[in-house]
């Protein structure tokens, strides 16, 4: 789920911020998709009601998740699907690998799927001698470039078309050396490459956007048609589905199929929606498996405030509106789930206190709240971020507190009594003549402080403290 060896967010972000091409690609791509989303959301007068409905369906389902999952298992089994339960990534990868090996398959085609990225399926299959081909165009770019995804919906958002052309020329066999960087030509080149894979692969691996419990229907929502090819051409289909993807009835899809495309691609309707309910004799894959994946979801479910993150339908709206994501890109989050949702989902799935990288994620936000406003299922991401920060702090409490904890304790002690604050302000007034710079208007400013003040003054001037606090002025002038 997380990329190995990633430094905590602040360090990873620092490097990303210095990447001029990345900054430009992201600013352009997120601005475009933000504008598209805003336009199609504004068309729907009942958008707020839809958001509330989406959140309510998910919450009600999560409240009785065990019941809905057993119902899903029964429906799937009734329709000839083999259901597997996977506690974690290793179990899930093992199931998929065993199915491939039992059929002597050494090549599988893949539908774009976050769950399989999360469990590192491609790498696990490769270790067992099975090659997994990503067939989504952007996933293909990432795979060929030996790169990591940086966005949930558009994993190659950090690449521009010139970079994609270079990747195709050097990594995609049989690419015409005359290939230009026109998007249509790039897509055509990828299509020629992928067509062979679709026609030769005997096994496909997918995820699912939704799993309908009462009909045993899996749903894949996509834009390119590659998913449809994977879901219909091979003989064997294995779908890895997070347990939070279940919805009780077919009617519930109505809400989500309106919320999802408008929030993710900024379209009224997505180009391809594939639904299948088990095996149809003589048509499509004749052997189907569904791997129901936990991998930390029950841990997240146990968190009363954090569990709302399991409503997520992986639309990426929160990434596209996030001012932090727009500047740092997805790799800085060190996970296949980047951006605001990644900053809460990773610590919820893994638990805080396991590694410094995960613990840094809840702090990778200015708490501006743009993500909550954009979320189609009303996940209050800032609320969960603050909640997770308190978990990070609590898990680190111990006999030898670090510098930040000492500073917070000192601040808490000072602010617990106004008399103590008054003394602190009297001390700070001593420094009111500090600083030679004048701010517009004439006030003195400090331009350089020792650490930790340098964290501020390295880039920002700081107004010098006033000679008299408000409190002191009030006592002198106003109290009568």
């Amino acid at each position, binding site marked *: 789920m997380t990329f190995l060896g990633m430094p905590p967010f*602040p360090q990873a972000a620092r490097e990303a911020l210095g990447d001029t091409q990345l900054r430009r690609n992201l600013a352009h791509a997120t601005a475009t998709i933000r504008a598209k989303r805003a336009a199609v959301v504004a068309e729907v007068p009942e958008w707020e009601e839809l958001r509330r409905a989406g959140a309510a369906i998910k919450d009600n389902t999560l409240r009785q998740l065990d019941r809905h999952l057993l119902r899903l298992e029964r429906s799937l089994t009734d329709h000839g699907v083999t259901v597997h339960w996977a506690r974690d990534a290793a179990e899930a990868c093992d199931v998929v690998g065993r199915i491939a090996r039992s059929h002597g398959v050494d090549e599988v085609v893949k539908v774009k799927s976050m769950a399989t990225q999360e469990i590192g399926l491609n790498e696990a299959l490769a270790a067992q001698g099975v090659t997994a081909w990503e067939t989504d165009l952007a996933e293909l770019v990432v795979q060929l470039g030996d790169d990591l995804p940086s966005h949930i919906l558009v994993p190659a958002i950090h690449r521009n078309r010139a970079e994609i052309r270079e990747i195709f020329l050097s990594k995609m066999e049989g690419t015409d050396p005359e290939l230009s960087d026109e998007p249509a030509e790039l897509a055509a080149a990828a299509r020629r490459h992928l067509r062979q894979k679709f026609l030769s692969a005997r096994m496909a691996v997918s995820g699912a956007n939704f799993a309908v419990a009462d009909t045993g229907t899996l749903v894949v929502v996509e834009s390119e048609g590659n998913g449809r090819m994977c879901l219909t051409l091979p003989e064997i289909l294995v779908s890895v589905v997070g347990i939070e993807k279940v919805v009780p009835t077919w009617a519930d899809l109505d809400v989500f199929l309106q919320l999802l495309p408008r929030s993710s691609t900024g379209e009224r309707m997505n180009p391809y929606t594939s639904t299948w309910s088990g095996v149809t004799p003589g048509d499509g894959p004749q052997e189907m498996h569904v791997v129901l994946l936990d991998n930390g979801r029950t841990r997240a479910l146990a968190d009363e405030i954090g569990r709302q993150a399991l409503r997520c339908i992986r639309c990426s709206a929160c990434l596209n509106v996030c001012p932090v994501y727009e500047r740092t890109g997805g790799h800085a989050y060190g996970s296949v789930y980047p951006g605001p949702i990644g900053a809460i989902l990773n610590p919820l799935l893994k638990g805080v206190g396991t590694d410094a990288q995960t613990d840094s994620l809840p702090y990778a936000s200015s708490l501006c709240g743009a993500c909550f406003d954009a979320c189609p299922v009303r996940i209050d991401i800032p609320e969960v971020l603050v909640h997770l920060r308190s978990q990070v702090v609590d898990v680190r409490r111990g006999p030898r507190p670090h510098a930040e904890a000492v500073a917070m304790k000192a601040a808490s002690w000072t602010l*617990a009594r106004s008399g103590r604050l008054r003394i602190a302000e009297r001390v700070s007034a001593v420094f009111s003549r500090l600083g030679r710079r004048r701010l517009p208007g004439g006030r003195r400013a400090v331009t350089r402080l020792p650490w930790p003040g340098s964290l501020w003054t390295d880039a*920002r001037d700081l*107004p010098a403290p006033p000679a008299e606090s*408000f409190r002191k*002025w009030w006592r002198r002038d106003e109290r009568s």
Partner: protein
Amino acid sequence: MKVALLVTCVNDALFPETGKSVVRLLRRLGVDVDFPDAQTCCGQPMVNTGYLDEAVPVVRTFAKAFDGYDAIVTPSGSCAGSVRHQHGIVARRGNDERLAAASSKVFELSEFLVDVLGVEDVGAYFPHRVTYHPTCHSLRMLRVGDRPLRLLRAVRGIDLVELPAADECCGFGGTFALKNTDTSVAMGADKARHVRETGAEVLVAGDNSCLMHIGGLLSRQRSGVKVMHLADVLAGTEGER
């Protein structure tokens, strides 16, 4: 109606003029505002950094200081948001529901002026080219909407120009400005660029903490743009400046 001023720790210690502006403005509008001397801080720095145990004594002091008042006015969207939406969290942690007693009584300055007092023209005069940055917590936590802009539009002499990408965060974010200083500055640099693009002499906002960040960058760039709290603009009248 007994009205208390929550001046906020940042204004008390660093921007006392803003507190004085609120007092002057409210008195001009006939409100006898009091400053409960026992107040310190709303606890937001601790809560937002994850230090809930440390927030409990601070919020307890807060609740006691403002006990007995009908309304609490504050020149900070962020602190108003903290009192309204986070004191409940601290109350749960401290196992004392009285800690959240102030939540329903707090008003950000523009809310108090427009919703409680019902005024938009406060009789201010400010003959300068001004642009306004809506701070995130006033915009998305409190939903103050265009109240601050309605107040500014009624100011005589003002040349109010629109800020591009106004509703995008400036990157301050409390301890975010120190813990993720590079990202914070990258966001602030874009905000400062947008401010400069307007040709405004003065950037106005409803939170001095955000203004300290944007203003710190604008000063480092020698942009010549001054930052001012909304209260400081609204308090000024003809003949004073």
